Every structure is written in structure tokens, then in C-alpha cells.
């Protein structure tokens, strides 16, 4: 990513349970309110289904479930963050998303083994700001192909 050499990195901050996560804005298409999701059978548990995103059928995964955090009911503040990775377009359900901030690349540190409830595998790094801790999510790992293969196994066919 070109921004890595720069000193500032623009990220979108979102909430999962009581932790704050961040994803680079360049990987984000839009942020949507929760809408009717059509369930897709025979897929992994964290795949909630598909939505009609302005004419494009977009798969939706529950990020809580994906990262191993217990699921909760959707509320007024629940959002779907549409992310792009390679040729994939996937929506991530998060508890809330309301912040776009610039963080200095100096503030980013490699991830410690375990942060809260989330396995370090999915974490690119941790950014320390004055009074908050942002977990930078590694989207590639979150949407990795092994997971898709896992989906195929779940299909059982």
C-alpha cells in the first residue's frame, strides 16, 4: 500500500464489542445501514447471506462471528462496511462505525500475541493514540481463501 511510506494513514474506525478496529479507507467502498439479508444456505456460520447493494449481490459476513467474538443483536448503530479485496466485494457487519481519522504510521506497532478476544492472525498491527487503542485489521486474512475452502467443507459436498 502506497500509504505505508507516508507518515499519515487514513483509516475508518469501527466498533466491535468494546474494542475499536481500523481499516484503511482505501479498502472501503461504503458504509451501509443494516438491511434485509438473504440467507445463503450451506455456507459458514459467519456468512450471514447476501444483500442487494445497488444492484450488486454482495455477500455479508458477521465480523464478530468471524473474529470469534460472541454475536449480538443488530441495533440502530449496526453498520455494514463494504470492503474490497482483489476482485472480492464483501460486507462486514460491525457494531458501529462513525469515525474517519488520520493516524501516524509511527504510532503503529506490530500486534502482540492476543488482543482481547481476537486472534493475532487477523491483526496487522496496533495503533496507540492518546487515549485509545486501535486494532488494524488484516482484511486479506479475514477474507482469506482458506476460509473459503473452509466454506466448501462446510457445504459437505
Amino acid at each position, binding site marked *: 500500500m502506497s500509504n505505508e511510506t507516508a507518515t499519515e494513514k487514513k483509516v475508518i474506525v469501527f466498533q466491535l464489542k468494546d474494542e475499536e478496529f481500523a481499516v484503511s479507507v482505501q479498502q472501503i467502498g461504503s458504509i451501509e445501514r443494516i438491511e434485509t439479508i*438473504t440467507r*445463503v*444456505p450451506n455456507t459458514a456460520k459467519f456468512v450471514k447471506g447476501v444483500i*442487494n447493494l445497488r*444492484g450488486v449481490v454482495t*455477500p455479508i459476513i458477521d465480523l464478530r462471528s468471524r473474529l470469534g467474538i460472541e454475536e449480538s443483536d443488530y441495533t440502530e448503530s449496526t453498520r455494514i462496511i463494504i470492503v474490497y479485496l482483489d476482485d*472480492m466485494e*464483501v460486507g462486514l457487519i460491525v457494531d458501529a462505525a462513525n469515525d474517519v481519522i488520520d493516524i501516524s504510521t509511527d504510532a503503529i506497532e506490530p500486534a502482540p500475541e492476543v488482543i482481547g478476544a481476537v486472534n493475532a492472525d487477523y491483526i496487522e498491527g496496533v495503533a496507540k493514540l492518546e487515549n485509545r487503542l486501535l486494532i488494524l485489521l488484516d482484511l486479506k486474512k479475514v477474507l482469506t481463501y482458506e476460509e*473459503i475452502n473452509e466454506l466448501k467443507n462446510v457445504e459437505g459436498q
Partner: protein
Amino acid sequence: MDTTQYLDVFIDESNEHIEVLYKKLLELEKDPTEKAIIEEIFRAAHTLKGMSATMGYNDLAKLTHTLENVFDAIRYDKVQVQSEMIDLLVETVDHLNAMVEDIASGGNGSQDITDVANQLEAIEKGEVVVPKEKIETVQEVVTAQNSSVFTKLDEFELSILNESNERGFQNFEVSVQLREDCLLKGARVFMVFEVLEQLGEVIKSNPSVTDLEDENFDYSFSVILVSSAKENEIAEKIKKVSEIEKVTVDAFSVNNYLDRKETELTTPVTNEVNTVEDKKVEKNESTDSENTKSSHNKTIRVNIDKLDVLMNLFEELIIDRGRLEQISTELRNTELQESVERMSRVSSDLQNIILTMRMVPIEHVFSRFPRMIRKLARDLDKQVDLEIIGADTELDRTVIDEIGDPIVHLLRNAIDHGVETPEVRLQKGKPEKGTIKLKAFHSGNHVFIEIADDGAGINKEKVLKKAIENGIVSENDKDTLTDQQIYGLIMESGFSTADKISDISGRGVGLDVVKNTIESLGGSITIDSEYNKGSVFSIQLPLTLTIISVLLVELNKEKYAIPLSSIIETAIVSKEQILSAHHKKVIDFRGKVVPLVNLKEIFDVPNADHDEEYTSIVIVKKGEKMAALVVDSFIGQQEVVLKSLGAYLSSTFAISGATILGDGQVALIVDSNAVIK
């Protein structure tokens, strides 16, 4: 002339003409006297010649010209069609095909065609009956009468000669006399030609180039040369070649040539045959163009990208149409409803047109197989009949372009490894002649292509042994494999069952490539076989139809779409009609036992209902097989746009895609083929 902009059109059209040639040649073999076929071949060859000449592909033009001559002779009964001839003619078209392919891949289409051209000329001349000989004598007379030996120039040659004058070149008639003690006439001719080609361009030679190269002439020959050099310069340069007796260089005048033609026309007796023939050719050419106009629809070529864009735009329209329809039913405004209905009708017509525009009958691929099979069978000393069923099955153009090679491979495989030699077949009590069936049909959102032979079948034990040897399966796994899985092993990479390697198939690469290609197209391939009875290779391919008719059904509160093309009918059956066989629920559907498939179970629909008095079923088919899908209720038929689930969920069991309904909701499309086992 800059012709590059016409190249695509040229290649497309050439391929079409070559296709016609192949097809008609095979028909001709069956029906050697049918004038209509001969006419059509002549016409195709003629057009091809004209096009390639215009584009400047001389070898192609030359070969088609010879081909055209042969058929000209045939259609005036100067030559009888014989089966050996067909071989040569097919071979000629093979050459043409190779040339066009070369051009398509950026080459200049040049090929060594002397052999074929020679043989063609031999057909044209050698096996002629009386009238043709007359022509030749006539030609000799003409030669004697006139100073020039060139009596027959075709339009193309004439146009070059005319043009050369305009461009400041001159036309010469160069006659070369070799010494009588010359040993290597062919070599000398070659050297002379090399000199000539440095000086300018050789338009025509007498005797023909091929005859010259085969030393089929006495000691003199003449050529028409277009050059900017002076007469004596040409003569001097040619004389540098040794063993040359005499060189004469004269200006060749097109006008004189035409005048001479005129006099020929007016000189009645001696030149009768010749002129009559010329006249006929001319007359025929004019009727040709008329025929073409009347028998072929006018077409225009459109870039497929534009069709894709058109399709995308139309998809948007369809989604909005669905929305409008829903709004109008809710509002119950008569005027609105009427205009929405009208719009729906127009857009369905539009949709039909757009869809069919992209569809091409699979015949385009199949048509080249009969001759291929014929040739292969001959090469392998086998007797094979190819039966083609469903050639009119239509497929999207993009798929058509890709499936040719895999099918070729499977057919070769069927002939090489499937069908036995006639002796073996007789021993086994089969008819001497093997049969390969090539069958295409639609089912659901897929098209199926089956290649079935009545040959040796697959030896399961041999396959297993080989697979274990090559480490494709482990010894332990072998008992757990089903027959189909074992047959499938022959398509794994690094597997070849042929005892000896032939150049037809069995080089160790092959079926795995077929499998990969088909899978990359989103299809699949399965093999069924019975030892000594034959094998069936069954290919399933997506239609890539993006707009389809579906039946919307409800499972609990979820909506699913079942493609109409795979549905036979819907029914409501009572509890008593559901029977049990081998612990499976089945129904008796018009005398056939059809298994019940509970979609709710397959799709894990929450709180699946318990037994009800009546069950709604949708009977779907995949080829010959059927299944009854159990649903909660039918919503109705609708046109929908097929959308992919996205790369993230690319292969979900029993779901072939999704669609957006009028209310903006996503409904999943059931892949009924996956459900039928």
C-alpha cells in the same frame, strides 16, 4: 491499400467460407452429382479467392483459385467427382484453414502449397473427359495465332496489371528458353524466378509455377512481370543465370490482351469452347451475387463487447421493470397498470432479441467434426460413424469459442482408445463399424454435451492399477472409490492408459487439459462406462444466460427461484401419493418413480414444517433423470437477471446464483442439476 482494418472481418468471413467448404465437400462425397452443392463450393471458393487477393494473401488466393478451377471443371461435367478426389479437396481446405489461422495469429498466410496445387491441377486436367482436351487444343491454337502465350487472365491479375501502369510500373512478357542440355530445369527456373522477383513481381507464368517447379515443361516458359526496370536490364539479368539459351522481353499490353479476347469472341469456330466457358463464368458470377443476396440474410458484425454493454444496460432495465410492476399492482391505477403492461411486453420482445443475438448454435463447433472423424478413422484403420444430435442447441458465443478443443480431444480419445479395430469388433460380436454419438441438449441453466462411443469401454482394474502406480490414489483408498470416481481418474494430470503412444491421443497430457478447460468455463465433466460396451463422457456447461425465466417458490419465509428451463411441471400431491422405496420418499409421476427432494432440508431452512396433508412439488429434470422438489408454495413465474453471488461465495452447493426481485430483495437461484443425483 491499408487492409489491416478489414483483417477481422476478413478472418471471420474466411472462416465462414472454409466452414461451408468443409460441410459441402462432405455432402458432395455422399451425393457427388448434386449440382447445388458444387455450385455452393464454387461460390465459396470464388469469394474466398477474391477476398484474399484483395487483402494481398497471394498463396491463399492462388490455392483457392486452383480449387475454384477444379470446381469450375466439375460443374461443367468435365471432371467427375470421385472419393479420392474428396480426400485431396478436404486436404486443400485444410491448407486454406491453416493459412487463415496463420493470418489470424499475425502471419502472412504463406505456405508451401505447390504439392496440393499440383494435384488439384492434375485433377482439373489429367482426369478430364473430352471437352477439356478440346479447350487445351484450342488454347494451343490461340497461342499460335497470337504473339502472347497468355490467353487467360483472371480479373484479379488484370486489375494488378492495370494498376501497375497507373503507378508507373511496366508490364512485361518475359520468355525464357533453356538450353536443351540443361540438367536441372527446375533449379534454373527457380534461379530465374529469383532474379525476376528482385526486379518486380511475377503475376502469372505459363506453364504454371507448380508445373515449372516439377519440370513439367519443355525448355521454354513465359511469365508476366510487373517491374520498373528496363527491358534490356531484365534480359541481361536473366542471362546471368547459366544454361539459358534465349531471353525475350516484350511489353505486355493489357489492351492488346483485351482486344485479343474480343477477336476470340468473334472468331467463332475454333475458340468456341473457350469463349463459351468464359461467358458462362461471367454469367455465373452475376447470378452468384444475386443468389447470395436472396438466399442469405443481410448481416452486420458487431463487437461482442458492445453486446455485453447492451446486455448490462438491459439487465438494469429488467430490474426496474420488476419494481414498476410491483408498484403498479400496489397502486391499482388502471392507466399506470396498462402502460406498465405495455412496457413489459415491449421489453420481453427486446429481451428475446438481445439474448438470441448472443446465442450461436453449437453446430458452428460440431460442423467440423465429421471430416475430422473421417480422417482419423482412416488414419487408424477403423470404421466409425459419427452421429450428431442436437446441433441446433444454442449457446452463448463466449462458451462456443472455448468448447471446441475439449470436444475435439474427447472425440479423438473415443476413436483412438474407445472404438476398436474392425477385426476386434467382429470378434466381440459387434458391428464392424463403430458409432460415436455426439449429443447436445439444454437442461436448466446448463447445456449438456455427451460423447458416447460403443467401443471398448474403460477397464476399471487397469485404471486403478495405473493410478496407484502413478501415485494418484493410494492403495488404501481404492476400495472406497465409486465407479465414476475411478473413471474420473483418467482425467487426472499425469495419467494415460494407452499402452502405446499414438499421435492421436495418449501423450500423457490430454484429458486433464480437457477437464481443466471445462472447469475453467464453470462446467464439469463426468464419465460413465461399461467394459466392452462403450463409454459416455458427459460435459455440463453453463449457458451464461444472464436473463432467465424462473418459478419463484417459497420455503418458509424465504424465496427461491427455480429456472423454468429445468422444470417439467408443478403439482400438489396428497400424503397418500408419497410412497417409500429403499427408505426414500418417492412419488409416481406419470408412471415413473421420481424421488422426492426436500429443499428445506437441503437449504437448512429454519423450523421445517412437519407433515401436511398436501405437498407442493416442482418436478425438475436433468437429461433423463428427474426429481420432485418439495416446496411450501409457488409464487409465480418471473423474468429475472441472473447475478453471481460474488467471488467470495463462488461455489455454493445447489445455488447457481442470485437475483434481485422487484422489491429489491435478493432471491437465490436453485441449481436443480446439483440436486438430482
